[in-house]
């Protein structure tokens, strides 16, 4: 009897979830119709799963809830030579109004590239955002245009730090807005401050007594990370200095991951699935490790002792490359895991619309829903696991890098030991969890 109750609850939950998610996708499809991506402001009927998915995992300048309802977010834009523009995202009316030459294109702020000066000031009505593709340096690129007063103007995306390798690069402006991702990070931070503040108050209240309430709930996490990550990876001598950093990075990543799994506001932002976020975190980890690197660490990195002099420059090249590859692997691992999970879930939900032939075939949509519910539920469970596992891996690998940097000099069997170290590092370069090794030897 209990099992049947459980089953029906499970079905209820999964159906409700799929309903909400499906609604979001559906509303997006409807919203996409408003600003047609055709060069003329025409209709756009086909359901485009790739476009929808990529739009959903991308960062946005407004928090889209349902239909035309969005939570406005602060917009802070800087164009060199033009100065700052600070506004709320609601002023852009989902792309129907240009403010100081900035236009909202599918949730992101873009800037008119070659517009006359008159259009770069005040509010202008935008007829539509048009989309086309063009060949640039042998690569097909998306071009977006804003139609204002019958004229079309090319739109610039915000500057990104990919050096132009991934189709981005420095453009005419920088976007320092509180975007959906930034908002979610602030939310996660506030939640963490509230949670751990309450835990710390528990320690003050129960001084000399057994822990109680939220304190006893969270203490195992603290102790687990201490006993499983910081002490084995950094060593008993130095671990206390780095425990706060490892705790912060673990819980920040974990909370961002978990908020990303919530399908509606205040979740749904793909924070840790954005390479800017993982890059920043990985670089911070690397900086923390390398800044604390001792003479032993730098000696082994720059001029490896115990190997023939002829090999030393080669080792230096490998080791210096390793300094970059370590944080790079951290960055890519978290980004790829989270983004992949989001793409899979959104793909499964898209099945409903593909099977339903974009709303024309109700039976197909029903069949798609059945398949989608089952697989989405499964994927959500996996994602929940991944949220914890990836936070753990990020923390443990950060601790490993710190541990290698602060490891004390040892004098036994130099050659043999470093052979092992190289193998372990090779594993980490491969981006696998097997890259972990205990520096406490």
């Amino acid at each position, binding site marked *: 009897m209990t099992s049947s109750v459980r089953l029906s609850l499970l079905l209820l939950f999964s159906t409700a979830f799929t309903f909400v998610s499906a609604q979001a996708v559906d509303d997006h499809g409807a919203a996409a119709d408003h600003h047609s991506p055709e060069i003329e402001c025409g209709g756009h009927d086909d359901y485009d799963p790739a476009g929808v998915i*990529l739009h959903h995992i991308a960062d946005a300048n407004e928090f889209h809830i349902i239909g035309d309802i969005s939570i406005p977010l602060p917009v802070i834009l800087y164009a060199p030579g033009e100065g700052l523009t600070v506004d709320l995202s609601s002023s852009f009316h989902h792309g129907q109004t240009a403010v100081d030459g900035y236009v909202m294109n599918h949730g992101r702020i873009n800037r008119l590239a070659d517009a006359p000066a008159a259009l770069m000031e005040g509010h202008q009505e935008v007829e539509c955002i048009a989309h086309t593709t063009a060949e640039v340096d042998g690569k097909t690129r998306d071009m977006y245009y804003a139609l204002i007063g019958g004229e079309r103007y090319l739109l610039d995306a915000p500057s990104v730090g990919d050096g132009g390798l991934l189709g981005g690069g420095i453009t005419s402006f920088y976007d*320092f807005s509180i975007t959906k991702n930034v908002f979610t990070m602030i939310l996660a931070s506030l939640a963490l401050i509230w949670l751990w503040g309450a835990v710390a108050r528990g*320690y003050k209240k129960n001084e000399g007594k057994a822990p109680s309430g939220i304190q006893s709930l969270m203490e195992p996490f603290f102790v687990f990370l201490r006993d499983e990550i910081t002490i084995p990876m950094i060593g008993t001598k130095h671990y206390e200095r780095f425990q706060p950093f490892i705790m912060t990075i673990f819980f920040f990543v974990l909370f961002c991951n978990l908020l990303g799994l919530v399908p509606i506001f205040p979740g749904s932002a793909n924070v840790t699935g954005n390479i800017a976020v993982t890059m920043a975190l990985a670089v911070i980890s690397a900086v923390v490790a390398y800044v604390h690197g001792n003479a032993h660490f730098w000696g082994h990195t720059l001029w490896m002792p115990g190997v023939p002099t002829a090999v030393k420059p080669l080792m230096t090249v490998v080791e210096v490359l390793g300094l970059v590859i370590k944080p790079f692997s951290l960055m890519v691992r978290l980004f790829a895991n989270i983004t992949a999970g989001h793409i899979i879930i959104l793909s499964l939900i898209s099945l409903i619309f593909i099977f339903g032939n974009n709303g024309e075939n109700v039976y197909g949509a029903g069949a798609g829903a059945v398949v989608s519910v089952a697989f989405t539920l499964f994927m959500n469970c996996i994602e929940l696991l991944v949220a914890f596992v990836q936070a753990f891996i990020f923390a443990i690998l950060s601790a490993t890098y710190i541990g290698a940097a602060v490891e004390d000099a040892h004098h036994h069997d130099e050659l043999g030991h470093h052979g092992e170290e190289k193998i372990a590092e090779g594993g980490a370069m491969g981006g696998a969890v097997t890259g972990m090794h205990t520096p406490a030897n």
Partner: protein
Amino acid sequence: MSTLFLVDFNVIKPDIGLIFWTVLIFLVLYAILGKLAWKPIQRALRRRDEEIQRSIDEAQRARAEMLAQADENQRLLIEAREERTRIITDAEKQRKEMIAEAKNEAREAAQKVASDARRDIDNMRKAAMVDLKKEVGSMAIEIAERILQKDLKSDANQEAFVRELVRDLN
């Protein structure tokens, strides 16, 4: 669609603004949590660990002490028991000794009393003998005087007279 994919894959383009905010938020969070939570929790946990260790040490010490105490008690008990046995034995011995002594003393006293009595009797007898002898002597002298003083003329008178004397003697 495939052309859209690579180009529109925005999440792989590191947005400079997002990097800026991530670094800022993370560092501020690290500073706040470090001050608000991690350090106090670390301190509290360390203090608790030390306290637990101290309690365990204390308990172990107390147990060892208790064991030692119990040993001591056991030893004292055994000693006391031995002492008791010893005391009882001693008392017993003493009692016997005292009884024997008392008996001896009594016997000696009795003997002494008896010998004294005997000696007294002896003495008294001797004295009596002396007295008797003296008396007899004096009587004999008296008799002799009377004999001498009277005329012992006839044998009959003489005989009667002696008988009278003897009767008087008695």
